[in-house]
């Protein structure tokens, strides 16, 4: 009896954390295959920066997908347009960086509002609307760039997005101290907040997991944070871009998990008619999903431009696919209504580790596509099959 119960729990554990386990397995696999090169501080630091654009886009894409498996195909083109405008204004027209950045964010939002209006209030299918946008904004982007590559070297612009944080006195030596301090603080906070939430739940008499399970989980998270910060401190410290990316992920995690606004996306994707009859303006939810996606695509355009240092007419090509792929690998339902930011982050990291590992191993680009596609398919097949099993109960 106890034995069957234990094996049942193990299965549940495996299906629930399947993607986390996959990430660990893939990570270890590449670490072994590359003789530990992937776990060098430089590569670890670059992993999140390289995947940064995917994470930012995927947070926005998640909201679109939640409304019913709808995607936004135009984000890659919006990156080209916004990045192009930023580079032309700062480099060719010598305009100050900060107003340009604000203007670019507004342009991203306007693009999103444009698409959100058609999708939410006129009910043009999102696939069509954003396919149109994909062509329109790519074309506009190339017009702005005049089909040239425009570099951007304005120090203010780069400082806002890509520089490494340097606090005098802390980050002068070979080992940077600020990441260690931040890491330790966050790790302690994670442990303390677990203890606090357990105490609150106990006080109110709610059911809770065993102390061992809760503290093992938060202990692992704290250890990972510490380890990653240790890696950062051995390289160049904390990048501003990392701060941007982490902040976006935290904000969207908060929105989707804790706010009424975020919950409406799940409701619309779960059953739009019922949601509408519950007094929720579903048109507005669609609108907000795409308006928000435009804003994030704009931000992403700035991040990508700063990181690469230049923009050309092909900037951002197929980035939308990476974002969409991350969402589905991370467990978002292709029919809408389920998916979490945490899952999406795991999905994006899994793609990132595979990308990086294969680059370090020197495999040709062609293989990356095959593996990426395979991973996406396997992840979704796994998801569908396991949820069918538990659903038929």
């Amino acid at each position, binding site marked *: 009896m106890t034995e069957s119960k234990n094996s049942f729990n193990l299965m549940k554990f495996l299906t629930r954390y399947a993607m986390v386990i996959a990430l660990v397995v893939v990570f270890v696999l590449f670490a072994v295959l590359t003789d530990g090169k992937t776990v060098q501080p430089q590569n670890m630091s670059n992993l999140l920066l390289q995947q940064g654009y995917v994470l930012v886009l995927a947070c926005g894409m998640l909201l679109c997908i939640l409304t019913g498996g709808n995607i936004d195909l135009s984000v890659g083109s919006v990156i080209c347009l916004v990045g192009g405008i930023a580079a032309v204004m700062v480099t060719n027209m010598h305009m100050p960086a900060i107003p340009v950045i604000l203007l670019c964010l507004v342009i991203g939002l306007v693009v999103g509002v444009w698409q959100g209006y058609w999708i939410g209030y006129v009910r043009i299918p999102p696939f069509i609307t954003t396919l149109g946008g994909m062509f329109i904004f790519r074309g506009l982007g190339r017009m702005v760039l005049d089909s040239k590559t425009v570099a951007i070297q304005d120090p203010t612009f780069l400082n806002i997005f890509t520089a490494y944080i340097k606090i005098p006195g802390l980050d002068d030596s070979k080992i940077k101290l600020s990441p260690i301090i931040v890491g330790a603080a966050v790790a302690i906070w994670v442990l303390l907040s677990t203890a606090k939430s357990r105490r609150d739940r106990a006080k109110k008499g709610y059911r809770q997991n065993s102390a061992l399970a809760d503290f093992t989980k938060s202990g692992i998270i704290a250890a990972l944070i510490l380890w990653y910060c240790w890696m950062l401190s051995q390289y160049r410290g904390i990048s501003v871009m990392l701060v941007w990316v982490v902040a976006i992920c935290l904000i969207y995690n908060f929105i989707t998990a804790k706010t*009424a606004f975020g919950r409406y996306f799940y*409701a619309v994707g779960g*059953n739009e*008619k019922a*949601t509408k009859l519950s*007094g*929720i*303006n579903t048109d507005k939810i669609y609108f907000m999903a795409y308006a928000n996606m435009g804003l994030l695509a704009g931000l992403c355009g700035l991040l990508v431009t700063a990181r690469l240092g230049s923009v050309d007419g092909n900037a951002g090509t197929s980035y939308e696919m990476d974002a969409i792929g991350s969402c589905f690998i991370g467990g978002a339902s292709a029919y809408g209504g389920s998916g979490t930011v945490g899952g999406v982050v795991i999905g994006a990291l899994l793609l990132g580790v595979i990308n990086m590992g294969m680059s370090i191993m020197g495999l040709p680009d062609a293989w990356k596509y095959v593996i990426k596609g395979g991973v996406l398919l396997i992840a979704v097949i796994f998801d569908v099959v396991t949820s069918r099993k538990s659903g038929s*109960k």
Partner: protein
Amino acid sequence: MADVILEMKSITKEFPGVKALDNVNLRVETGEIHALIGENGAGKSTLMNVLSGTYPAGSYTGEIYYEGKLCQFKTQKDSEALGIVIIHQELALIPLLSIGENMFLGNEIKNSMGYIDWDRTYSESERHMRQVGLNESAQTLVKDIGTGKQQLVEIAKAFSKKVKLLILDEPTSSLNDEDAKMLLDLLMEFKKEGLTSIIITHKLNEIIYCADKATIIRDGSTIETLVKGVDEFSEDRIIKGMVGRSMEDRYPVREHNVQPEVNLEVKNWTVHHPLYPERVVDDNISFHIRKGEVVGFSGLQGAGRTELAMSIFGRSYGTGITGELYIGGQKVDLRSPQDAIRRGLAYVTEDRKTNGLILGESIRFNTTLARLDKVCRSGVIDADQEIGVAEQMTKDMGTKTPTIEQRVGNLSGGNQQKALLGKWMFTEPDILIMDEPTRGIDVGAKYEIYCLINQMVAQGKSVMMISSELPELLGMCDRIYVMNEGRLLAELDAKDATQEGIMGYIIRDTNKA
């Protein structure tokens, strides 16, 4: 014993953690109409899925003998090949294909070249359609015919498969009384020609009307088989078997304490069809509901009752809506469900799966959805408070569930209905519009829903109750409005009203047109 067409012996079927069927026996003789009855979740549909091969041989224990031979169906195709056809509760027709295409879907008539032979497809289809008395062209799209006729298409489709044993799962649940009677008469007609039918239904009067035998299933086991003419064959007797206790009173007694204040008043309300704006769905309707009053709306399918309710509930249905609406004596203009909810209206839909609940989400999620702001502080959900109110609602409604985190899709029909009611009670309405509040749920759960309705009116709330079950209206309401074809025909005091009286109004009006 050539007479026995089907014998299922000690069927046991287990799902992980649940024994859905426990040693069930069923014996059906050739040429009879055999009713299968039981509360929701008793195992009727599971049993039929075992029979049809939807659950393949090997996934259950026990034996199935069909026409004297032991059968082990691997798929539904295997059972259909022997003439066992099941028609599911949710019709499996594709709206945008023609009747003929639907009838031979997956079973297409091909010519020698391997192409579909459309001439034969349509002529065969029409031949079978005439058999069931359906006078439509086989090229008509399924979406263009009514639910009643769609049901007939399903039966015609069964004939095209050379059916010998027809299984109907809740065939009349979406039909009005008239269409339902026609369908049952048709079954009795076929019986004379030797067709055997198994019919699963909650409507006991239908069983009394047409069935020869009734097998009662309770909690996954066969309780008894009643034979017409041998055993006592009455609704009360069947209910006793279903619930394991006699239910003397199907409607809880209530103090009628209607207060003089009018809570909701509708004047000259006219609604047009959303797709065909020239069609009038509700024509110049005026009515009122007092505090503490249950007001029934009776009528056939398509009488415009649901449309009336939804158009009042923040214009959720229809275009070109005119008329005046007063809540508590004050004139209001409700432009959206938000407005309606804010004004204390709640609409408990007739179709809880499509319009009411988010099946993939938990009871907690569904309970607070319509008034999330009540558990929010500046837009952020207070998780503890939400859990608290969801648990309170679940307790108040008597929803049976292990936890409030249970997905509502996994609940039985009756418990889904209670969860839906809980969701709307959480909005603290003054006026509840309840559209078919007991559709497709079992007798025990119905009684509990009725008790909840009584509690609400005792608190001074008003209930607008739309129901196609006349006994329910007579048992629960203070007043009853009768509607037909978008018009209000009569207003009756429930004390003086009778089923015959109400039907009389409707039939006389239909005949006039």
